[in-house]
């Protein structure tokens, strides 16, 4: 027979079991959140496409009539044909001025001949420089070679006293260098080697400087040629870019507007209405996915973390000897440690169904902002969305309106009802 109370030991066991389940559940929520992130990323792209669709519908071309119509429709005079024509002329003049400056640059006009000269000069440098680099490089890699040169070893300038360690160290290294490189360079002592090295170094540095100068000039010419090409390309694309930029400006202008205002702008234009509905629908999808994330992932995770913390606290507390004999009402125990698997699965199912309905929805033409909220369109009214404030508010207002309408139809003169609606 089951008693009406449970022991502290039972509570500790149940808490441990529940924590194991909580850990698994939190892991499952993390996986759900990753999938949710993927779905959200898809929507970010969908929103970009929707805006592109809308701005293309609004500004199909740079045709003056289309521009002026769009400028009037969205109250953005800088999109008007006159303003854009001026902008185009200014930009064209700017590009032409750049091109004229490049074309007038003697480095550009004489570029082919000069490039040849530079190539020949660089080849000349290349004939001499590697040998000098090699010849000076092998000496410079020798230990203490630079110090020997600096101190003037092998010359009258060398001042090191014979009684210092440095004197003998310099002597040793100088002899090693001469022994290793002297024969190849035809030098019998360090003084001759030094003389030869310094001559080669001066020649090498001169060639290096010349090479750098020639290469810099070569790069400058290449830069001019590249600039000329880029400005010409930019000029060729000027109209396309102006149109794209005008569309982007229009988007920046429209992004701040709520759906109702967008819908009003599109009134009477079927193509624009479809495009506006698409933007509105994708924006709603973003909001709904955010709400689903809060309601079905963040909030449950927070609740689970709280439950786990309580279980941990109670386990530590009830394992103390002084609580060993305590008992707890069974009803409380069962309520606290009830099996939540089924309930959680149902909740998850609801989330998945809602997410699927939202992500897979594409029938934007069904939108009617005054009669129905996007949530009901996307879920066909099958799912409860009242955890989302805008959906709940719409339903509340709509119910009031229906109530008022029913009261009117029934011939009741209920002013309070009408004042609610207004």
């Amino acid at each position, binding site marked *: 027979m089951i008693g009406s109370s449970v022991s502290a030991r039972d509570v500790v066991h149940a808490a441990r079991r529940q924590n194991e389940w909580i850990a698994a559940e939190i892991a499952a929520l993390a996986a759900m959140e990753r999938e949710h992130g993927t779905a959200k990323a898809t929507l970010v*792209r969908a929103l970009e496409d929707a805006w*592109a669709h809308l701005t293309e519908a609004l500004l199909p071309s740079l045709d003056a009539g289309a521009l002026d119509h769009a400028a009037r429709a969205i109250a953005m005079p800088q999109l008007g044909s006159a303003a854009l024509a001026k902008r185009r002329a200014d930009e064209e003049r700017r590009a032409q001025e750049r091109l004229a400056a490049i074309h007038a640059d003697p480095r550009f006009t004489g570029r082919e001949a000069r490039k040849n000269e530079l190539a020949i000069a660089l080849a000349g440098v290349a004939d001499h420089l590697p040998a000098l680099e090699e010849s000076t490089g092998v000496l410079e890699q020798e230990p203490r070679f630079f110090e020997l040169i600096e101190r003037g070893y092998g010359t009258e300038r060398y001042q090191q006293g014979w009684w210092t360690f440095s004197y003998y160290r310099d002597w040793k290294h100088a002899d090693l260098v001469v022994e290793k490189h002297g024969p190849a360079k035809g030098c019998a002592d360090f003084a001759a080697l030094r003389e030869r090295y310094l001559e080669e170094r001066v020649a090498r540095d001169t060639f290096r400087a010349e090479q750098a100068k020639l290469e810099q000039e070569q790069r400058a010419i290449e830069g001019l040629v590249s600039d000329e090409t*880029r400005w010409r*390309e930019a*000029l060729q*694309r*000027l109209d396309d870019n102006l149109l*794209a*930029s005008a569309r*982007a400006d229009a988007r920046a202008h429209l992004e701040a507007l709520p759906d109702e205002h967008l819908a009003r702008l599109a009134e009477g234009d079927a193509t624009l209405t479809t495009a506006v509905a698409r933007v509105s629908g994708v924006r709603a999808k973003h909001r709904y996915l955010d709400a689903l994330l809060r309601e079905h992932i963040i909030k449950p995770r927070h609740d689970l973390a709280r439950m786990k913390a309580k279980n941990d606290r109670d386990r530590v507390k009830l394992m103390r000897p002084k609580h060993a004999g305590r008992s707890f009402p069974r009803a409380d125990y069962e309520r606290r440690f009830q099996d939540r698997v089924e309930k959680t699965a149902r909740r998850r199912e609801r989330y998945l169904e809602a997410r699927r309905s939202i992500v897979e929805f594409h029938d934007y033409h069904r939108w009617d902002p005054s009669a129905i909220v996007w949530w009901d369109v996307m879920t066909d009214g099958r799912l409860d969305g009242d955890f989302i404030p805008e959906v709940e508010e719409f339903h509340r207002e709509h119910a009031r309106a229906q109530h008022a309408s029913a009261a009117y139809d029934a011939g009741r003169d209920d002013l309070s009802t009408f004042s609610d609606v207004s």
Partner: protein
Amino acid sequence: MELPRSLRIVSYAVNGRGLGHLARQVAIHRWLRRYATFAGVRSEHWFLTTSEADTLLLHEGFAGFKLPSKSVVEPAGIDKTSYLALAKQWVWHSLGLLRPDLFVVDTFPEGSFDELPAALDLCKHAALVLRPVKHDFMASPSFRAALSLYQRVIVPADDDEEDACAQIEAAVGGRARRTGPLSLVERFAAASPDEARGALGVPAGARCLLVTGGGGGDDDVGALMALTERALGPRDDVHVVYAAGPLYQGEARRSARSTWWTSAGLSRFLTGVDMAVSAAGFNAVHELLHAGVPALLVPQRKIADDQHARAARLAARGLALTAPLDDEPRFAAALGALLDDGRTREELRARVAAAGMRNHAREAAAALLELVLPRSVVRHAAAELDDDALARAARAGAELGDLVDLAGALAPAGEADRASLDVDPAIELLERAREAGMSAREVTRVVRALAPRRRARAADAAGVLDAVTALLEHPACLGQLSSLPRLVEALPPLKDASLVDACAAAGAVLDAALAAGRSLADVASRAAARRGEVSHRDILVELEGPLVREGQA
């Protein structure tokens, strides 16, 4: 002292219905706001005033609480004692609710209703702007006692008011800061002479004579206008601008050779005025002197302000002519000299220029702000925001807030310290951006998006300027410069990159977009859609840019 996030500054300009107190305080508040903006501190500006010309506050963007002036109490049928009780309570309650960080009182340390001594402890810091007043006022024991309640006393006096200044300095000791006169004239904001003459309605070829009675609330203003008109007679070579002041209630004087000016902002257009006939009030006189306008001063009789002494002092120094209102032949002679004697006019102009007279509102504001902000920041703000910097920023179409934001974004990483912030590179960049066709706000967006995180290495200012300019002038931006801010905002941030590196990376994207024939808006849209998922290199690869192939990305 640490930088606060916000400051609430309240000014007390309560005395009669005139404009003088209010104008002086507004002149100071303009600079308080500029320096606070430079320091990155949000400042609230409130005025308690009885001036009937409080629309000046609206024009300047300051908030004002208005109490009826003493001069309308009687016509409105209000009992004097009730008014006094209401006024005291109003000031106390206002201060109790506002709890200012800085409370600035003009001229009367005890307040116009003797109410301030009981309320100053509601303010974190209290300061007084005390221009030299009549000797009787200074000699009053209660006046001198009330001076001790203020942590700082700004003395906006002229060079020739040494005695009065010494008297104030003796009374307040080290708390006094002598600044020189204040006015609303800002040289960097002045209109060009042609623009000013256009605004004042002066026809080509005519000389412009300004006739002003300050705020216009004094009884003598109408008489001064009438006297000037009689003395002038029928002349076609002079166009008269009657600056009636917002308080003037007499008849308007409109004709083909005159302009009836009642709006605010006349100080901007003094560059179009050739000479002036003016009352000798503190503000009117100093506005004319600061703008270098040769003037004939006609003193009015006032309670605290000794206009006769001021006019006489300035005339003795050869900085103005003076004539009494009640001596028409003398007035006519002085006006004749001003109008027709070119030598007199030029001498006046030369002496005013030599006296180096200017608006000292910025010094007053700095001295006040040092009570509530670190001195190093205030001094640096004062050094950076000189006339040249503000004029260039205004020409580049930038608000001060944008300028400071931009300077902060351009500062080497981690060194956007307000005590060392340099606005010159920001101004230079704004000028270049304007030339390229980009607004101050847009270029600030670009720089902010590219600005390095704290750990990035610093780059030299010239290198940064050239790097950002290269972006603005990139051929890929032709026809679509307005899309550049959105593009750079959509690009993934570069870890540990300097601003120059970030510009180079953005430049590579521009190169690639141009080579691929893609619009910046399109590239921005795609990058934004995959923000957090893609790197610069991914974007370049997608654009099949040449730089990737060359291994430079």
